[in-house]
């Protein structure tokens, strides 16, 4: 974002478009998590969109949450069930009925 560099120096003379401080950081974080989890309401989505153009801490939190989620989903190995176990289970239930 090019905007952040230009405004940091002139924050006193004009209305800042980009907040360097977030007053509701914990609430914003919770909202960001709801959104990334697909659990947010339209209202919360709209609020996030507004924050993402006006609040530097929210932008960073959003990227971090997204990154952590990606680390978990894409980078961690997904263990597959060993074939042997599948076979064992299938044969064990046959002796049940």
């Amino acid at each position, binding site marked *: 974002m090019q905007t952040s560099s230009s405004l940091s120096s002139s924050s006193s003379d004009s209305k800042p478009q980009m907040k360097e401080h977030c007053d509701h950081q914990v609430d914003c974080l919770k909202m960001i998590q709801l959104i990334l989890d697909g659990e947010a309401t339209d209202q919360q989505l709209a609020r996030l969109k507004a924050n993402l153009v006006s609040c530097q801490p929210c932008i960073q939190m959003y990227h971090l949450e997204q990154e*952590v989620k990606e680390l978990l989903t894409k980078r961690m190995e997904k263990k*597959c069930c060993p074939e042997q176990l599948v076979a064992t289970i299938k044969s064990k239930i046959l002796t049940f009925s």
Partner: protein
Amino acid sequence: MSDTPTRDDQDRTGMPDHGGSTGSDQLLPDGDTVEQPSADTPARRYTDEQKYLVFNKEFMPHIDSMYNFAFRLTTDEDDANDLVQDTYLKAFRFISSFEQGTNAKAWLFRILKNSFINDYRKKSKEPAKVDYQDVETTYNSEDAESEHTVDLRAESVSDLIGDEVATALNSLPVDFRTVIILCDIEGFTYEEMAKILDIPIGTVRSRLHRARNLLKEKLRDYASSMGYNEESEE
């Protein structure tokens, strides 16, 4: 909250099929996991043939996810093996309490998680340092502490490899690890998680929030110890 199942035990008492093993059927999904359309079809009487069909068509497709869940809970391949096997045998034994076409994955995950708490953790090497449900109270008592944001940049952790992420995840108390696995790795909704874990949705939300804060702290420690930290930031 309104999502806690208000369905009473009527349909459970109307389900005479697994008498005998009184202690163990409380471990099993009693039907809340999914919507039950009518209480007047209490016991789903499957023929043997139908049982195998349901088992193969609805349960077996989730076995990789189940194994991964078991492995992430136990952090041990042999234990994961045992846990998955126990769970599937239980699922088969109690198949009459599963309604065909409903959320089999959530149903199975709930059995696995209950087996883990009830059977596995007792004999596990993991010392009884924190009890599954105790974690909640422990961390509730420091609410101010858990309601915060972790000072960390996305770029600081973006170079971590899978094993490092796994180590960080494994270092969390199992309660917190569980919600992260269910949500981020398995993609369950909050509502499904509430049913799998037998907790209200509000607790799912707050536990996730805390779990992620803990995880980020671990990741931060990891990243800085690996020297991934400062790239060009000051």
